[in-house]
């Protein structure tokens, strides 16, 4: 019996795309939030971490309504922009970005908050620009947080299921990601491929977590002996 590995390619394609997009947005947002003294900060924080507590079906349902071909915004996306969001790869990228955002935001924010402001000031004093300081002083100093953010965002996207199923609708080669392929095979009572997919997902999940913990542990030790 031949086992299709396309769902894994779709999952990897999705996870790489989503991780790149989310990291690009989450880094400046987390930086802003970490150093903001605004009274309204809590509102932004609540909205951005909402996906952590919201059932994926809720987001999937509203996105389905909003982006269906039968709704005005959906028509704009699919007919005017040529970028249909329902039952398409771009759609599951959009929904996964929203869902994985807090998984990158939280560790980054924690990293920025733990940062000693003095080294940033020192960098400014030595004539470095804001961007230079961010890239060569801030980021290297929060490396464990960066690794955690990238890994959690990537792994969470690999494991995302509910919202992708609602928005993507299980189209082979396009939106049938690995987690949905498991569901699909179980649904067809074909358990062998379901086992193969599940074991691979388990292995991937545990390896990502092991990398995170290993990297962070090494950092910790170095700090202790410092």
């Amino acid at each position: 019996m031949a086992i299709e590995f396309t769902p894994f390619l779709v999952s990897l394609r999705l996870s790489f795309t989503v991780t790149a997009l989310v990291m690009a947005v989450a880094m400046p947002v987390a930086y802003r939030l970490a150093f903001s003294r605004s009274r309204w900060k809590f509102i932004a924080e609540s909205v951005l971490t909402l996906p952590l507590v919201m059932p994926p079906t809720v987001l999937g349902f509203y996105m389905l309504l909003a982006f269906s071909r039968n709704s005005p915004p959906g028509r704009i996306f699919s007919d005017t922009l040529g970028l249909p969001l329902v039952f398409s790869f771009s759609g599951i990228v959009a929904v996964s970005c929203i869902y994985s955002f807090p998984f990158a935001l939280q560790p980054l924010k924690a990293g920025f908050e733990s940062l000693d402001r003095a080294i940033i000031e020192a960098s400014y004093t030595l004539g470095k620009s804001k961007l230079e300081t961010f890239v060569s002083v801030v980021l290297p100093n929060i490396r464990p947080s960066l690794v955690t953010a990238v890994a959690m965002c990537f792994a969470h996207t690999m494991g995302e299921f509910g919202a992708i199923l609602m928005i993507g609708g299980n189209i082979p080669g396009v939106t049938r990601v690995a987690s949905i392929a498991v569901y699909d095979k179980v649904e067809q009572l074909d358990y062998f491929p379901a086992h193969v997919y599940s074991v691979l997902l388990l292995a991937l999940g545990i390896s990502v977590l092991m990398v995170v913990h290993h990297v962070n542990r090494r950092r910790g030790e170095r700090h202790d002996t410092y």
Partner: protein
Amino acid sequence: MKTIMWVVVAALVLSIAFILNSTRGTTDARRPVRVAIASNLGSVMEELAASFNESYPGIKIEFITGSSGKLAAQIINGAPFDIFLSADMRNPEILYSMRLAGERPRAYATGTLILFTTGELPLRKAMELLNLPAIKRIALADPVTAPYGKAAVESMKNAGVYTAVYPKLVNAPTVSEVIAYTRSGADIGFTALSLLKSPWMKKYDVRGKYWMEVDKNLYAPVKQGMVILARGRRREQARAFYEFLSSAGAKNIFKKYGYE
């Protein structure tokens, strides 16, 4: 030095994302025919596609399974399917009336409703069997979205056992999940005979031990219809498969899987 490292890492991630995305363009040119199928067709479809590919080796057929109602809802919302094989005539009719299908639905098979169990149950006694105290959970496909579930409710009503067994009923999303439920928690379940004919379910295809047919007089025939979808992209290829499904060769395969 550190700056360069971060630029390299970022460039690497972006290029991997780009490479993985760029494969999409090539797959679109030889996109397969996407057939949305009701769950009861999960087992017969592979053989049908294999037989079809003997005469049309170049056309790849892909399946998306689900309950008929759910698939129809997805098509209404823009799912990119070429053909829809429902477990009833109603859902294809709805799509036709919404002009999502260019021509009237065509019946391709009539399904067989069975009672399936993995336990030791006396399967000879008709529907009164469901009243047995040993049966605590009866699985059926959701009657709202799954035609076999609707047929199951109808047969229980006509046999006069529905009100008595109502508290025992457990809804599964599809007929194939009824089998999963019956293998794990439910004592007996209403499902489609075709599902027991797949290679990986063969051990349960023992009439009188694991399954019995539900009396055909108790429910309206599960007449299954299909349509070619107006929004489909692979018109010619879809048409070829659609015509094949009405051929004598396909009829024989359907028969082998318990359809009429």
